[in-house]
């Protein structure tokens, strides 16, 4: 059967009244969660998992998909109205979005964000439909050694690229892998890291771990550093856009989508880099350059589209390869296992109904988001007035309830507490969370592939690089690991640029500095996108790419400084 047929069937499944209801619920919850401080989509899905045990997996995943897209959207609402971007992905939206809101154009900013999200999400999902089947066809032909290589790439990419300290990233990865080891070895039946505790023999419930790290750890961390000074939101009416706004928005939407999707599909590609690239591009191409820094609509439209397209991109490796590239995808993969569904390339063959209903529901959820969010935006802003004690006590309450409901044993709550404290400590000492989750989820599968690969080669270690794809991927891994050196060299060679930035005062100088970058960045982005589609990045392509990528982190602060500087002088 061809893709279109399958997709139509998916729509038939997803469009039943019950499933539409779940999609609606998911979108609603997701947006609420995106708006509320301290709760992200990963935590929301983790908290909801236990509540969905009674549901058909299809319905549950339709709801999760809604939460995922809704969360992306909700984040942009807060960054426009409050200038407190919750996730790094919406930092860029906040730059122009909040300025627009302050200039009395909150309605247009919200509208371009909502419609842009819809456009990017829809195109992104269509790209997912187009790309996933060929990726699956390709993946099915791969042997265990290639899989192992791809998983190693995922480990290294997540650890070495994200976060400021690689060492701490690897520590986090090690912890995740160790947690994943607990339980009975599937091959020899021996107990590992069980310490004589019969309750540990089945392994740690992934849901309990996810809830502990994302919900309990986060709630404790926020409780330890509660903000005390309240902000006020900018009042909004119903979002709308004039003709001029449409004219200025549609191209940024499309360009943002083009940036977002490939980056989302990369391990650790994420949404930060494409949103930044989109911002820089729009700034350069805009006919209203003078408005940038004072609320240019292009600066909201582009990054928002990039953000949502990257969310769709993330789903491609998740569904086609069983490879999570961000926290929410990791938790959703955990959910698959929870329902006894094996993620990986065979998912499309084994569970076509589920997969295509999920994809169809992404289209539906996207449309619902647009329909719900345009009229409800003022209501979402009200959610921010919930007193913090209720919010964070609520997170702890539902985390406990969910973890307890899995097996109805208090022992799980003790695990929840211990790992929650670990999550707290990790946040305090700057260990990124994502490597732990990826290690936890992919670790056992990577071990399985390792053993299979060596079984096939009869114990010969060369079996690990018996396939060309595996070799290619290992070269990419080596390139990733070598990047810091290249980066250091490049940095040393460009001290003048940094000095110029530091010396830059006032918004125009800093803004001009930001605008210098785009050409190289864009070329690099294309290289990078091309590289992953083949799952094997030659190191020349990857190296300059990474060298250009950290630019956002370096430059953003300067950019922001210039804004606050400007504010002070007003």
């Amino acid at each position, binding site marked *: 059967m061809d893709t279109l047929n399958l997709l139509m069937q998916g729509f038939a499944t997803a469009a039943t009244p019950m499933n539409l209801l779940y999609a609606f619920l998911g979108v609603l919850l997701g947006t609420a969660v995106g708006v509320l*401080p301290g709760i992200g989509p990963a935590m929301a899905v983790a908290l909801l998992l236990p509540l969905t045990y009674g549901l058909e997996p299809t319905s549950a995943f339709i709801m999760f998909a809604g939460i995922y897209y809704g969360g992306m959207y909700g984040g942009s609402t807060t960054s426009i109205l*409050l200038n*407190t971007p919750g996730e790094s992905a919406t930092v860029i939206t906040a730059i122009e979005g909040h300025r627009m809101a302050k200039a009395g154009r909150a309605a247009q900013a919200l509208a371009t964000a909502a419609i842009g999200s819809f456009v990017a999400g829809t195109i992104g999902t269509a790209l997912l439909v187009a790309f996933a089947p060929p990726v699956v066809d390709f993946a099915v032909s791969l042997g265990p050694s290639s899989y192992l290589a791809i998983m190693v790439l995922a480990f290294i990419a997540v650890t070495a690229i994200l976060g400021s300290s690689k060492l701490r990233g690897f520590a986090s990865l090690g912890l995740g892998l160790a947690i994943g080891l607990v339980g009975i070895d599937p091959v020899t039946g021996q107990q590992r890291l069980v310490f004589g505790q019969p309750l540990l023999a089945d392994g740690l419930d992934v849901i309990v771990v996810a809830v502990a790290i994302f919900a309990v750890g986060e709630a404790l961390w926020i409780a330890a550093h509660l*903000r*005390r*000074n*309240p*902000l*006020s*939101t900018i009042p909004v009416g119903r979002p709308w856009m004039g003709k001029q706004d449409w004219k200025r928005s549609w191209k940024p939407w499309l360009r943002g989508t083009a940036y977002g999707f490939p980056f989302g599909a990369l391990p650790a590609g994420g949404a930060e880099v494409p949103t930044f690239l989109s911002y820089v591009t729009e700034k350069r191409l805009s006919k209203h350059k003078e408005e940038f820094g004072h609320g240019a609509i292009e600066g909201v439209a582009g990054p928002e589209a990039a953000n949502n397209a990257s969310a769709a991109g993330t789903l491609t490796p998740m569904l086609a390869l069983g490879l999570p590239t961000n926290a929410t995808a990791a938790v959703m993969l955990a959910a698959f296992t929870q329902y006894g569904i094996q993620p990986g390339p065979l998912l499309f063959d084994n569970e076509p109904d589920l997969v295509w209903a999920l994809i169809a529901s992404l289209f539906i959820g996207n449309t619902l988001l647009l329909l719900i969010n345009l009229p409800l935006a003022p209501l979402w*802003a009200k959610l*921010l*007035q*919930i*007193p*913090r*004690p209720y919010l964070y006590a609520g997170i702890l309450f539902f985390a406990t309830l969910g973890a307890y409901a899995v097996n109805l044993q208090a022992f799980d709550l003790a695990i929840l507490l211990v790992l929650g404290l670990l999550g707290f400590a990790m946040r305090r000492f700057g260990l990124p969370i994502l490597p732990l989750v990826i290690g936890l989820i992919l670790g056992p599968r990577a071990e399985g592939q390792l053993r299979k690969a060596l079984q096939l080669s009869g114990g010969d270690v060369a079996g690990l690089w018996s396939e060309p794809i595996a070799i290619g991927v290992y070269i990419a891994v080596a390139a990733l690991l070598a990047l810091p050196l290249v980066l250091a060299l490049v940095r040393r060679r460009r001290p003048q640029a940094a000095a110029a930035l530091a010396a830059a005062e006032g918004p125009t100088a800093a803004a001009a500095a930001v605008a210098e970058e785009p050409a190289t960045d864009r070329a690099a982005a294309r290289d990078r996108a091309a590289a992953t589609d083949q799952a094997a990045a030659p190191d020349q392509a990857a190296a300059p790419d990474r060298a250009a990528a950290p630019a956002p982190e370096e430059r953003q602060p300067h950019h922001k400084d210039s804004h606050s500087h400007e504010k002070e002088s007003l």
Partner: protein
Amino acid sequence: MSIVVGYIPTPEGEAAFERAIAEASKAAAKLVVVNSSRGDAVVDQRFAQEEQIAALQSRLDAAEVEHVLLQPLRGHDAAEEVLDAAESHGAELIVIGLRKRSPVGKLIMGSTAQRILLEARCPVLAVKAG
């Protein structure tokens, strides 16, 4: 001597503020402006932000009254903060804004104004929005 006014950025709050300036300049009293928040939510629309405070400041300067602007964030009710300020500044008058409410609305909501009226040790002037 001094006059304490509870300020929130609403028509009622504005009315109270205007009236308090008038009272203060009439009596040549020091004006203590209290704008508090429990600080327990991300967003509190009743807490004046920088620009709003700057605007208040310039109005106070223009009216040429001696004044203090307080924005306590101690997790206390607004009523408590106003009463506290009145106590510590030895206020002779407290000015507050009052919303129009139905008796039922009053029953459900409870009220900052009511607490101030009941517990203040000095006269309280309740102003409604024009």
